[in-house]
């Protein structure tokens, strides 16, 4: 997976999506790649997993060879207008930027193209071997992945339209892009993962996703439980395990990550995930 140029990590809220994104970025960094980790959604998802303060729009080196940034829409927009659309002196055109920002509130595909567009521009740059995006949850991921297509439907001509075409190509290229869906072997995340898989299959925007099931318990040998606290623990573990097996059957994952007991900070969780992923690959 690390030979791709872009890994987009999504999943239902609460499944550990940001932790997996951070773990993947750390693993790539340890393998000597030049990595950019991008926080797309609400602030704090990635930064807490790297144990650093809030990220900014300008990439900051959080480990040797690993940079991280947060997409601030207004700044991405200004950059988009000035560099990508080659509008000279856009800084003085504050009004245009403000108008676009307001437009982005009302015309959703525009908001999303600015975010996904920024990521795809970074992929195009030779500065990074790999870009890892901590993407919005699966409930919203469709509108981001579809943004370039939505734009070409919404805007029949113009410079934005021309760009939406290479964005669509990059997203669909199996050598470039890998979507990762993080899930849990539980009812709601499994249902949402299946819905997302169906949407992806129907829309064919990105190559088939890789499904990672998180917090998977190990099987406990089926011996009669002793009494007392240890017996209670064994009973609970077995019963949670068999519920998990049910959902693993419904949504067979490509990779599983173990339940991580007794970790205190998001930084510990991400480091542990990168160890586990290294052992798996």
């Amino acid at each position, binding site marked *: 997976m690390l030979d791709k140029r872009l890994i987009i990590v999504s999943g239902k*809220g609460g499944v550990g999506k940001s932790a997996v994104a951070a773990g993947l970025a750390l693993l790539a960094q340890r393998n000597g790649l030049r990595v950019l980790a991008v926080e797309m959604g609400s602030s704090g998802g990635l930064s807490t997993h790297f144990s650093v303060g809030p990220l900014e729009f300008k990439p900051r080196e959080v480990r040797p060879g690993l940079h991280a940034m947060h997409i601030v829409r207004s700044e991405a927009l200004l950059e988009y207008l000035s560099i990508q659309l080659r509008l000279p002196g856009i800084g003085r055109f504050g009004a245009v930027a403000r108008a676009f920002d307001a437009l982005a509130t009302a015309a959703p595909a525009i908001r999303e193209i600015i975010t996904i567009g920024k990521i795809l521009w970074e992929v195009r740059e030779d500065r990074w071997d790999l870009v890892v995006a901590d993407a919005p949850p699966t409930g919203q991921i469709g509108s981001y992945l579809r943004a370039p297509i939505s734009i070409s439907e919404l805007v029949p001509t113009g410079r934005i339209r021309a760009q939406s075409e290479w964005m669509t190509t990059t997203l669909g290229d199996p050598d470039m892009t890998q979507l990762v869906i993080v899930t849990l072997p539980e009812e709601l995340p499994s249902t949402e993962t299946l819905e997302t898989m169906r949407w992806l299959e129907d829309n064919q925007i990105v190559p088939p996703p890789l499904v990672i099931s998180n917090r998977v318990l190990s099987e406990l040998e089926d011996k009669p439980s*002793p009494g007392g606290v240890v017996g209670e623990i064994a009973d609970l573990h077995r019963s949670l395990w068999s519920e998990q097996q049910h959902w693993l059957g419904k949504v067979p994952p490509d990779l599983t990550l173990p339940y991580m007991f007794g*970790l205190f900070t998001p930084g510990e969780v991400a480091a542990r995930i990168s160890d586990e992923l290294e052992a798996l690959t």
Partner: protein
Amino acid sequence: MTKTILITGAGGVGKTTIAAAVGVTAAREGLRTLVVTVDPARRLASALGIAHLGDEPTPHVDEPLLWAAMLDASASWRAVAMRHADPDVATRLADNEFFHAASDHFPASQSYAAADQAATFVQARAWDLVVVDTPPSGGGIDFFAAPAQMADLVGGRLLRWITGGPLPGRKLLYNRAARPMLRVADSILGSDLLERVAEFLVDLRTTYDGVARRGREIEKVMRESSIVVITTADPAPVSEAVKFYRELPGLASAPKVVIFNRTLPDAWGSPSIPPETSAELRHVAQLWGSETLRQRDAREEFSARYGATVATVPLSDEPLTDLDGLARLMSQGSGIPWERIGIG
């Protein structure tokens, strides 16, 4: 007077289950209770006796004081805007592609719709208690900021810039010679995209007074509610819960309690392991033991740092398929300040 409990917290921590369990507990205390949920698991929905999105409040067959409703947030946002629009504006909006796009994707729209719907139920005065399970979109805090954000959207920042003033007539929009910026924008976006958006915003703008007034009513309901924050002891949801404790006092009101869901029994923290225990089970018992200690530390730190009332609900391996199961889950909880949130 109808009391309100708003259940909030990060995604995946069990908000919907706890909202339902609080509702059952209240109903069994003799309160006529309505549970408003957004996206329950199928088993939970059937336990509550509701099956479809957009379901009106329905009384439970076996629990006459318990009512439940399931919101279809995208549909009700549209309904809100329509409610405040003149008939001909409503017709145009119904046909406008941006209106549909905005109502499907505007991040606060789901939150706004849920807040509006909940406020309507509270104002109906038909229940003693309304328990609202807030939608997860936008990280939860969104729910509380949604009324103001919605007024801002409808008020039309873009529109004010294009027209440079208050609500214009529809014709004024086409006076583009006066607006060189519009031409720049058009060359980038192509054709008349901006104009079509502006047209939609002009129509939406006519609903502003109604939406803003409604927003103030919704905010009043929120300020008078008891806010209950749900989390697990995992690092990410805890940092979300911290955000609620920091930001909610300014937006609505300070949370009454933080409930740590899926809490392990204290006794598991240092299990006495009988000598005949297998190595494998010994290892598993130690893992769960370390998890128990970590959970306890997370609760203690939260309470010490934010002066929060901390309560717990146990980790249950029972599938919650009926009301008795939900009630039992709540009764195994500890430290929930029932009186302060209006129950018992």
